[in-house]
């Protein structure tokens, strides 16, 4: 059994998981204006803080898990990110006028490992919005195989123009606010955030019980409900549970027209007339792309630990095509199984199952 031994988060809400969840409870959410759209920005940070922020979030997770220096040295490091070093490259591009200075992804894990004294296996996983959820599944399977004993899984997505302009080129950015599954939804608001999750064999309240990764080749940009249903089914199978066992689904819910319809149809197909509680988290921290896997997991775990399940915000009217209503009131946290969905460009889809014991 693979447990979540510790975690940490730095988000636009606050610079710790605990404070981020307190901000959710108090409704203290803010975005900054960026042209026609908005952005969820971590306060008081610059592009050059890239490595310092990653180091900080890992150190916070290590402290949260009470790890020794020896354990840290032997750990494997998985970094899930879509943009990788682009924030740094863009800083140099604007500073020097040279567009491409350096993409060299492996340098990110090398520098972080060196700063923290990590001597174990390390990898960068870059699969768009599923980067860090896939990293969690890969790390879990590698621990189960016996190749490693413990892993730090980091999700990192920091401000960069390429992601914002790229999403804008597809007309996917919201001009108002993120309203998953709402009839009036008009798209995504991007955000920056990073988090770290420690996986290992030491018993804790949260078990990473299962997970699945699949590719959907029906469309490069829009998921098909059949594949989404299949990836959720496979995640449940890997956890050896049934749809009826799920207490809540942390939905991917980007608030884009097509994605929300496909995800809602997949959930309605799999869970039939009894869907569990539906919780979108992106309206709180934005779509943090490759980091949303660990970011939204940490937000959910810390909320559960704090005794509540957040309410869904910005939802007013159900979209008939989605036929899905997210959780509109704050609930008390409950022990049980939680399903988390993450879907990305290139048809890369993954689902995780957490058991809160």
């Amino acid at each position: 059994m693979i447990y979540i031994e510790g975690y940490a988060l730095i988000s636009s809400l606050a610079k710790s998981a605990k404070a981020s969840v307190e901000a959710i409870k108090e409704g203290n959410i803010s975005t900054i204006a960026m042209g026609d759209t908005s952005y969820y920005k971590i306060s008081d940070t610059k592009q050059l803080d890239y490595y310092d922020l990653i180091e900080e979030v890992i150190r916070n997770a290590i402290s949260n898990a009470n790890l020794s220096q020896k354990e840290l040295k032997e750990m494997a490091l998985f970094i899930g990110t879509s943009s990788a070093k682009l924030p740094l490259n863009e800083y140099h591009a604007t500073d020097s006028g040279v567009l491409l200075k350096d993409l060299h992804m492996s340098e990110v894990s090398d520098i972080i490992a060196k700063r923290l004294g990590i001597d174990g296996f390390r990898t960068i996983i870059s699969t768009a919005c599923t980067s860090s959820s896939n990293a969690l599944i890969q790390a879990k399977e590698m621990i189960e195989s016996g190749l490693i004993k413990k892993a730090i899984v980091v999700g990192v997505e920091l401000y960069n123009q390429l992601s914002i302009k790229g999403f804008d080129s597809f007309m996917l950015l919201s001009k108002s606010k993120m309203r998953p599954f709402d009839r009036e939804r008009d798209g995504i608001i991007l955000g920056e955030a990073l988090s770290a999750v420690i996986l290992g064999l030491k018993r804790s309240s949260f078990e990473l019980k299962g997970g699945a990764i699949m590719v959907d080749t029906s469309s490069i940009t829009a998921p098909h409900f059949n594949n989404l249903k299949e990836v959720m089914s496979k995640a449940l199978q890997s956890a050896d549970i049934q749809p009826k066992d799920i207490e809540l689904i942390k939905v991917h819910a980007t608030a884009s027209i097509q994605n929300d319809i496909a995800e809602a149809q997949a959930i309605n197909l799999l869970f039939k007339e009894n869907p569990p509680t539906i919780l979108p988290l992106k309206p709180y921290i934005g779509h943090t792309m490759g980091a949303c896997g660990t970011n939204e997991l940490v937000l959910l775990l810390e909320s559960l630990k704090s005794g509540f399940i957040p309410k869904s915000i910005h939802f007013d009217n159900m979209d008939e095509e989605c036929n899905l209503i997210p959780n509109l009131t704050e609930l008390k946290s409950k022990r049980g199984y939680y399903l988390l969905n993450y879907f990305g460009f290139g048809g890369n889809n993954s689902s995780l199952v957490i058991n809160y014991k």
Partner: protein
Amino acid sequence: MYIYKFSNFVEKVDGELSDKKALLTKKFNRSDNFINLTLVGVQRCVEDTKLPSNTSIYLASDNGNMNTTIKVLDSIFIKNRLPMPFNFLNTVNSVKLFYIAKNFNIDGKTIFVDSFESAIIQAFVDIKQGKNVLLGVVTEAIDNLELHREMFGDKEIIESSRWLLLSPKPDGAIAKIEEFQLSNSTTSKTKTSKLFSFLESNKNSFSFKRDRLSFSVKKML
């Protein structure tokens, strides 16, 4: 873990980058140089082998598709306008995997990583689970050769797309990977290209050691 098939596409660049699309049996409209380079290697490795749909795909590249990234950054920072949507999309690493999966009707796991060592270690886990794995390492050159030399200091510029089709079963395999180990880091730095040169050679055994990973490869008789 067995090597069922491999490809070793390597091309020296001294002028313009070649048209890889011309080498592909199945072409995609919006693919860029990196994606076409990837597909040339995959096509040469898989040939007409029917892959199980749950085959895992690992694509390793430290710098990804630099030419398209430059185009997108040029739109944003120099021309001050939005990038072309499919140029942006081609910079997204999972999109490269989409084309491979689409080409071979795969619906399994697709993972983009930074290095060969990282890919083969994760592939080893899938193989232990009984899955087949298609694993490649792709390196693109920047079409502005002067910029390429400045960034990488390469005297000879090459593009490469090297692939392994790995299987948990020995049937029909050309080589066996054994003594697969992760240990504390070493100073050994076996080049990935040496593994592929070995597979093309008449030699029977090969030892790979790089950072924390070591394994040996023995040709099947």
